[in-house]
């Protein structure tokens, strides 16, 4: 390997050829401020248009300043990251960016989490010397995402996520010069586009230009309404990330505190989406086994592989882009929606109240869930199964507003009956988790034998596309895993071309799965955070007494008392759905 010797701020450093100045500096503890740059190493995601020019540094012998994020270190290079010239340029460029940015930080949704605000603070900007015309664009509110383009600084991260990582292709830079901005075609609203609401644009936006639709006010109003019973479900990935909002180490599991906080907020029952994740496995797993059985019997009409369907952005993606294949994914609803429909039927029955008097709130790592719960098919007489979906971030905001000292809360347990879950339900929150949970149950239900080992290491990891073959007692089952819609697209295109090798495929829209969801605390480009969240979920799983969905006693009880058996008519009605051709 070719090694490069250089000095940065007079410190010698040796790096591998191809290393940028930014990375070289980081390796010896020198942080060069950046703004547009973002790199998620293990996910292969990098944004470095070299556009913001905040990371410019002085390189001896060079005519102009060099952007540290794009400039490769070369042998003998002498870099000064904080010379007066570099600092002056950096501050001036930042002033320019601020001169074209609304200064409504006090009331901005991103305040406190804004990379631009942090930078202004860090570089000590106290005055903007170059004032002038500010960009003015129409704001756009969709069911899940708000775009306030006056706050766009053209870092192009969202564009990169939408095109390179997700291949959704809704966003592009448009216009030229001062009027350029990132937008859908013809500046149409997001809800007229093929946007999946995966929220990865929101997850990476450094400013308040892209944020989620805020439903906290509506939830507070419901909580304050004495005529309503308000229950809440918490998605698996939330417990592995919420702590970050309260300055806890990434990867800290806060399940018990989460439950306690929700009780403090006034929810009447605190339940777990992990419960309905187990339910999803029962339905989806059964569907897989049915299709597999018919396939083995030689039925030519059977569709294989089966695709998971718990990710609402993924569902919207194939409805827009692959409507010809809409009968391939499992018909099972997502855990959020299964929870809602069971809550408003079975649980409302237990309580003896009308569904209209029961308000179901979900806490999700996701912004697409806001859209999903508003889909027409998930409502009865215009009453939605899930009333409001809050993101992890919104919940954190609500806890802060309510003066709850989160870190000091004692752990509490979920309520019964919809709060009991297994380790299989927990790992839904990471890439590979849904399929691992499905395999745990499908294996035992198919073979009638107990799994020799519960963990399937071969299904875990951060690779965007993974595959493995699981031996179902002599029957090899080929499993595929994709996270990030670009990877999903590859699998679908193979399938469309008729050369798919798989029996079952798990697809998650967000890189990393739900732990990296668009509604999670901002990772600000630090991939280690995602990995720690993932590890936390596997930890929670291994600490659980029951780790297979079909062994969840409350799930068994639900089938005995209410649904009959998986894929029963009632289950079909409450737990399954249909997909639509949304070609635009």
């Amino acid at each position, binding site marked *: 390997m070719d090694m490069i010797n250089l000095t940065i701020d007079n410190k010698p450093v040796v790096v591998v050829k191809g290393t940028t100045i930014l990375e070289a500096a980081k390796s010896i503890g020198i942080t060069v401020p950046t703004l547009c740059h973002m790199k998620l190493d293990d996910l292969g995601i990098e944004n470095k248009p070299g556009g913001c020019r905040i990371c410019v540094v002085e390189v001896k012998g060079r005519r102009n300043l060099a952007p540290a994020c794009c400039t490769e270190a070369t042998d003998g290079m002498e870099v000064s990251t904080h010379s007066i010239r570099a600092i002056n340029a950096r501050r001036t460029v930042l002033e320019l960016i601020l001169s074209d940015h609304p200064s409504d930080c006090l009331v901005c949704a991103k305040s406190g989490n804004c990379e631009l605000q942090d930078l202004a603070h860090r570089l000590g900007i106290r005055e903007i010397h170059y004032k002038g015309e500010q960009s003015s664009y129409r704001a756009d509110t969709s069911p899940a995402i708000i775009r306030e383009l006056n706050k766009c600084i053209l870092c192009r991260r969202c564009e990169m996520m939408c*095109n390179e990582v997700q291949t*959704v*292709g*809704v*966003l*592009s*830079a*448009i*216009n*030229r010069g001062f009027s350029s901005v990132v*937008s*859908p*075609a*013809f500046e*149409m609203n997001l809800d007229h*586009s093929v946007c999946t609401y995966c929220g990865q644009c929101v997850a990476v936006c450094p400013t308040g230009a892209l944020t989620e639709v805020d439903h906290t006010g509506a939830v507070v109003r419901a909580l304050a309404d004495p005529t309503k019973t308000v229950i809440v479900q918490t998605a698996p990935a939330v417990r592995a990330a919420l702590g970050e909002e309260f300055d806890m180490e990434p990867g800290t599991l806060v399940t018990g505190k989460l439950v306690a906080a929700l009780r403090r907020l006034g929810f009447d029952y605190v339940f777990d989406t992990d419960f309905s994740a187990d339910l999803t496995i029962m339905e989806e797993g059964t569907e897989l086994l049915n299709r597999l059985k018919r396939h083995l019997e030689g039925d030519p009409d059977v569709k294989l592989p089966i695709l998971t369907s718990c990710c609402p952005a993924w569902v919207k993606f194939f409805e827009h882009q692959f409507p010809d294949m809409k009968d391939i994914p499992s018909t099972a609803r997502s855990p959020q929606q299964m929870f809602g429909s069971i809550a408003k039927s079975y649980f409302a029955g237990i309580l003896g109240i009308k569904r209209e008097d029961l308000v179901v709130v979900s806490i999700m790592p996701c912004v697409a869930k806001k859209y999903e719960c508003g889909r027409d098919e998930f409502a009865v007489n215009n009453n939605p199964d899930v009333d409001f979906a809050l993101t992890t971030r919104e919940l954190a905001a609500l806890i802060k507003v309510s003066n709850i000292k989160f870190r000091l809360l004692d752990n509490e347990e979920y309520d019964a009956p919809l709060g009991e879950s297994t380790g299989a339900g927990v790992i839904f929150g990471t890439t590979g988790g849904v399929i691992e949970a499905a395999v745990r149950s499908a294996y035992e239900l198919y073979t009638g034998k107990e799994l020799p080992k519960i963990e399937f290491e071969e299904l875990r990891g951060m690779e965007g596309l993974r595959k493995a073959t699981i031996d179902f007692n002599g029957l090899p089952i080929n499993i595929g895993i994709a996270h990030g819609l670009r990877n999903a697209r590859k699998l679908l295109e193979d399938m469309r071309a008729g050369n798919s090798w798989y029996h079952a495929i798990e697809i998650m829209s967000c890189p990393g799965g739900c732990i990296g969801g668009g509604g999670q605390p901002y990772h600000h480009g630090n991939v280690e955070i995602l990995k720690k969240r993932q590890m936390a979920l596997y930890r929670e799983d291994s600490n659980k007494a029951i780790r297979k969905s079909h062994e969840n006693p409350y799930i068994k009880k639900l089938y005995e008392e209410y649904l009959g058996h998986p894929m029963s008519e009632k289950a079909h009605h409450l737990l399954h759905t249909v997909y639509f051709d949304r070609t635009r």
Partner: protein
Amino acid sequence: MSRIKLSDSAVETIKEVCMSFGNQEGELINVLHQVQDKLGYLPAEVQELVAQELNMSVAKVYGVVTFYSYFTMIPKGEFPISICMGTACYVRGAEQVLSEFKRQLKVEVGQTTPDGKFSLSCLRCVGTCGLSPVIMVGEKVYGRVSPQQVKQIIAEYQEGCPSHEAKSA
């Protein structure tokens, strides 16, 4: 944005153009050039069809259309008027000529008169600096134009038959 419906022949034309470039995404700019040549402008519906044929996102097509000043989403006037804003023309008074055109036609640069007759645009050096300031109406070049001549030039076209006498030399 008001939607228009593309005629069958327009659809056919667009598809043919795309096909002639092998429906290659990399040929987008060539495709847009030819389609604009044939249809006069590139409304949203045209861009959507081009995106579909080239199997690319319509946002990307729109991003390209809005980047290049040659592409337009507004139909050009029957007589497109272009004012050269090259430096040579500028120092010889092109700006005054331009503002006179704006005043007479009551449109801004990039707009078309309501009757669809004239559209006004600026272009960079036409390369006839010897005749500066220069304007073009369609393909016809007028050299050494003064603000006083503007009214007369417009009048030539308003009557529908451009005379050749008006050309200054």
